[in-house]
């Protein structure tokens, strides 16, 4: 007969909270990237200085977009991982319940008493 198995030691609630925070910041940075892009697009500013300013704004916008993307990806992975942890823990709990159900009554009572 098989043994009891331990649950995975992760706080999926906390993982989801952090993932949501990351997602919020990812969205925020994405908006800021768009804002810089918009500021650049609205400029009527020709010449070398204008080109340089627009180029700088474009660079900053792209940097923000990249960071936004990376944070968004991390948030998504974290949420998926939390779901995975929850489903693994559910399977472990079912397994442990089955082990318990197959024990002799005295042993089960002793075990439940010790728990």
């Amino acid at each position, binding site marked *: 007969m098989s043994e009891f198995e331990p649950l*995975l*030691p*992760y*706080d999926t609630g*906390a*993982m989801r909270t*952090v993932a949501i*925070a*990351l997602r919020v*910041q990812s969205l*925020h*940075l994405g908006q*800021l990237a768009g*804002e*810089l892009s*918009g*500021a*650049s697009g*609205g*400029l*009527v*500013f*020709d*010449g070398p*200085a*204008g080109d340089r*300013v627009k180029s*700088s*704004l474009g660079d*900053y916008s792209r*940097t*923000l977009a*990249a*960071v936004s993307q*990376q*944070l968004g*990806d*991390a948030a998504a*992975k*974290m949420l998926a*991982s*939390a779901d*995975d*942890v929850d489903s693994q823990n559910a399977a472990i709990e079912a397994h442990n319940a089955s082990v318990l159900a197959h024990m002799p009554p005295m042993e089960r009572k002793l075990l439940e008493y010790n728990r």
Partner: protein
Amino acid sequence: MLEAPGGGGGTVVLIDPSTLRHAAARVKITSQELQLAKSALAQISTPAMPSSVAAVVLSALAEADVSLGPLPPGLDQLVIELTRRAFWAEFADQLLAGYNLSGTALQEFKAWMKDGTLLQYADEGEAIAAGRELAVAYSGFRKDPQLLIDLALSLKASEAKAAGAEVERAFGAGFVNQFGAKNMLLVPRMIQAMEWSRQITFEMGITNPNVLHDVALSWEENGKTLQQDPIKDLLAPFCITLANATCSGMLAPGASSAIADSEDTWATAALVSQGTFATPFLLQCFKSGVVDKIVEDSRSNLALGGTVPETDFPLGEMWSQGKESLPFDTKQTILDALARNPDAAAQALSQPIDAQPFDVFGQRETITNPIELLYRYGDFADHGAAFGHVYVTATDHLPPAEASKLTVTALTQLVGYDHGGMSAFKDGIATDLADHHIKDLFDSAASLDTSSSIAIAPSGADGAGEIELGRQNLTTVIAKLADRPSAFQTLLHAGATYQAALIDQGTQSPPVLGSSPVWAHKIGSFDATVLNATDLNRWEDFHASDERHQLVLGFFKDVTNGVVALDDPVADAVVHTGVDQAFDKAFPGPDPLQVSLTNADAKLDMINSIRASIAAGYYDHGQIHVQLPPDLQGTNGHLKAYGSLDVEAKRSYERWMHENQQVADAVGPAAGQVSDAFTDQSIDFGP
């Protein structure tokens, strides 16, 4: 708005200031939001999670921190650029047309001049306009000294951030032309009145009409105290602005002359106390503030028996509690300004003047050579130190043939008109001789000319600009430089390096019995002249308490060390080109604490060091094949430097030189030449 780039050229650049301001506002908000986002991300603490996810999350957070870090400052800089460029796009035409700003535009102008950012994005035309507008905006400074302080801050910030030297110069010209010479000259006086307000207010009997008593009184009555360094924070920005204006080629001639020729020479001197000014302006200042002043002082000296002090309230002295102030002597300040511009220094000392100072008998003498006037009639509080700086700058800058004319004049004055008031100028002469003429001094010492001539060498000599001194005057020159230890040390150190190089080069060839090496005669002659000039005709004359004698002793040790330290190519270069500053620094002089302090040690050193230097040269070049005593063996097979040895090792060195026949034979011809040169000049260093 359409704008032509760079004042023309065909193409037009389209700039709409309203879009620039609008974009700046959006970027500014973005920057602020970004700061908040950064803080929020920094506060996230990750819980325990599977390692594969943890790596991704931690990597994303770390990357965000690195990538977002430079963004807010960069965005803030873009906001500044966009708003300042919008300002210029909006108001440049108005300012260039001579219309002044008002309202918000004036407020923005003042604020952005004060932090320097407006000039950061200005072209030359805009910089001129900015200078003009700033002068107008602060024209009321005479009644409100706080305006002067704000103005100084604006000038300082704008100079620091202006987009290049041309913009700075254009800005300076725009400012000074509008501000005017009269106001520029008032600036040092205003600062003086603020710094010395109490003394000026309450001191009786201030007769100088240029001291601003009313400003001091008002400052004092309002209970104000100066919060800025009067020289570095307040005066310096005006000096630099004026310096830039003189270099711009756009400064109105009237303004330039009015400042240079002002009767208030104290104010003029204060205004040139910092910065690099254009040559024509400096030459004007030199004429009025130094040449004419010396002539005027020569008259005052006759009447009053001494020079009249310029002012009782030197700038910076009260603020620094006596630690730092502008020189009391305004001539000195102007000479220091000349020394910062090599071309001006060269012209000032080489162009003829027409000065007629009064001699001690009240007779007018016509002097056309500026060095002669300054040397003989200049009464300098720094004993000619600043004059020496100008002299060194000029002789460094001029072509050798021209520079040597200055050298000949200076040496002629030193020999014929030396006086205590020029003691510090000797440092300048020594530096010039050390840097440009050390070879000439050795050649002069060895020549047969015993006259009192000081002249440029005739053409056909080794190179242009060599000088020749008769032995009598060479001795006098060295004797007079020896009166000032710092000057003497400069000369002797170069002499030691050159002498070491001569020995090094001379001993590259095998010694020939019965020969008369010219190089050895040359070093013997120079050393004999130095000894004569310092009253050291016999070793018994050595007095450890005489600083000159300690320096001469250091010279001999310097030579022995130099022969060991010099590489052949360096020695050849020194012999060929003289002792320039690179060589000079490469061979630092002897540690003053290491020179012999007793007469007995000194005797030992002086008698043997020349012979030891020659022996070291021959040994190191492989011309002597003998086993070295163990205590004389240095690193890499070299002989130890005689000057570095203790008394016992020196005895060993002497025995090696005198008792080893091969060494004695090798050293003999050169040592004989030295000995002959000594005898020729009545130097008796025999045992």
